């Protein structure tokens, strides 16, 4: 079967991807998504946006993977590819060992209920013309997830689970605050009884005071329903709290994946270091650390014309001559700790 054979087209995971077949819920291999740029009358393709360019990772059942990176690095694109909202240009997505990246829409339906998504903007993710009852309950009725006639009771249950009142059912989305709306979005995903929820920047549109509530809600639902999460965020502080493992992404590629604590205490990739330095330090004693901050300069390079070699070399504080030429693969440097950087031996062997 596909996932058992290392694919030579994607050199990164011959060394990097965790051993396959040992009960991963979701496994992504060499995922690529290139958006064509069309110009002119005839819609000639003049180039591509290399949004996701060869990404491999895997998630166990019950695990939470944080996917972190600056805006425009392709993390949302990965999320949408997983749900097949976008068609991947290349690569495979294995869900419980089955490649779902090439399934037809009809065959996909059974998996659609298994993977759900929570969206970034709670003001745009709920249909303004439907009552909450309909927003949450529509999938129950369409896919016959509960016996007919019971769907309203199920909606009440779901509302209670996400911390809303049952009588909120009859209201429209615009009557709710951002945090409440995001809870409705969570309930809508839960209605499908998913195994995996892709949360695309679930709190970045919310007030800071509300963010923790929603994060805690996600955390509490995880054990109760045996969920796995992919939490996409641009802010390390957000994923820190709920992730088991974190994958750091830069310009369409993973640069480092590690267990939560390893990443925070022992970041290897200069980009991860820089991201961690950028996390605000609230304690007064953090002044010393503040001085030693290593902040990167400039903007993310263009994904239309990515830099040669290591994509981060244009902004890296430790850039070397070889970085311009060699694109380092993701290699394992410790238990579940992978880095794509020449400093750690990648690509030299």
């Amino acid at each position: 079967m596909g996932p058992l054979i290392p694919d030579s087209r994607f050199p990164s995971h011959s060394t990097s991807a965790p051993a396959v077949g040992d009960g991963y819920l979701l496994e992504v291999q060499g995922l690529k998504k290139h958006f064509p740029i069309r110009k002119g009358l005839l819609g000639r393709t003049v180039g591509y946006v290399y949004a996701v360019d060869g990404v491999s990772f895997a998630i166990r059942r019950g695990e939470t993977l944080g996917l972190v990176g600056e805006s425009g690095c392709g993390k949302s694109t990965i999320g949408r590819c997983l749900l097949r909202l976008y068609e991947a240009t290349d690569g495979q997505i294995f869900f419980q060992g089955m490649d779902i990246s090439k399934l037809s829409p009809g065959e996909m339906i059974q998996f659609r209920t298994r993977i759900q998504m929570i969206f970034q903007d709670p003001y745009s993710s709920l249909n303004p013309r439907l009552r909450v009852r309909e927003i949450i309950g529509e999938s129950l009725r369409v896919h016959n997830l509960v016996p007919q006639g019971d769907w309203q009771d199920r909606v009440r249950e779901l509302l209670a689970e996400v911390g809303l009142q049952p009588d909120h059912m009859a209201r429209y989305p615009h009557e709710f605050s951002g945090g409440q709306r995001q809870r409705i979005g969570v309930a809508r995903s839960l209605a499908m009884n998913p195994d995996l929820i892709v949360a695309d920047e679930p709190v970045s549109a919310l007030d800071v005071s509300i963010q923790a509530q929603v994060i805690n809600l996600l955390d509490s639902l995880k054990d109760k329903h045996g969920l796995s999460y992919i939490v996409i965020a641009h802010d390390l502080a957000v994923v820190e709290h709920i992730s088991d493992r974190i994958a750091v992404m830069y310009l369409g590629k993973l640069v480092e994946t590690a267990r939560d604590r390893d990443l925070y205490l022992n970041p290897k990739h200069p980009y991860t270091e820089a991201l961690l330095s950028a996390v605000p330090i609230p304690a007064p004693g953090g002044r010393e650390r503040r001085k030693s901050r290593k902040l990167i300069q400039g903007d993310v390079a263009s994904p239309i014309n990515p830099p040669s070699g290591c994509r981060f070399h244009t902004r890296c504080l430790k850039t070397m001559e070889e970085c311009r030429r060699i694109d380092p693969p993701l290699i394992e440097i410790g238990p579940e700790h992978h880095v794509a950087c020449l400093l750690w031996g990648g690509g030299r062997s």
Partner: protein
Amino acid sequence: MAEIPTSNPEIDEAAPSVLSLVLRKMWHLRMGVLGALLIFCLIFIALFCPYVSPHDPFKQDITKRLWKPAFMEGGKAEYLLGTDHLGRDLLTRILYGTRISLVVGLAAVILMLTVGVTLGLVAGYFGGRADAVISFLVNCMMGFPFILLAMSLVAVLGASLQNIIIALGLTGWPVFTRVTRIETMKLRDREFVLAAKSLAFSTRRILVRHILPNLLPAILVLATVEVARAIIRESLLSFLGLGIQPPTPSWGVMLAEGRDYMLLQWWLAAFPGMAIFMSALGINLLGDALRDLVDPYLRKT
């Protein structure tokens, strides 16, 4: 000694009566209420014109031709708006004309909606080749002079009420396609549509349940404007002799007949013209108010 208040004024204020709420709402939408009243009158007249009109719209009497309206010197109270060149009562004919206008306006717009919105949804949602073909068609239709198209259609099909409706419907749909297409494109990439996709809903369901209701305000406003426009266009076609044929009392036919007497018997053209104006105005006012009502953002609980 100060009297102890028996009731809390704040609580009294917090519970206004239903009547006052309704009145406040009506004041808020006063133009819409005016429009609704006008439309109500139109529908009432259309339904009951045999009972409310004083005379027979077809009965000619040469001895009574070109009588002045009642309010002018020499006018007769019996013929409130005077008589036309064949001695028929003008008021009666205007009242009967509402039937034609309403039927043509509504039926033509329903036809436009069916064709236009369907094509607009397809073009906007699927994009690509479907969009290219439909957009090209729309641009062709928009560039083609309405009168020429309607004339050729009527010439081919023959002038009858049914064919007028078909001609108006087949020439009017592109506006709906344009609006629907643009709005659909905007909605297509909204997260709630992505959410509906990830909930594995069929494309049909996404279009009908998730996109179409969000288009309603825009379409509704356009539809009311188009009803008014269809009424005016029917008058125009009838005026040119391509529409409703005399002696059927259509406002356009009456305008055309009145044209010959414009200098001295101005009322023959003026009153049918007023009727066209009032109905178009009423429909437009109502459409505006309806848009405010159906928009959940504006709807306060």
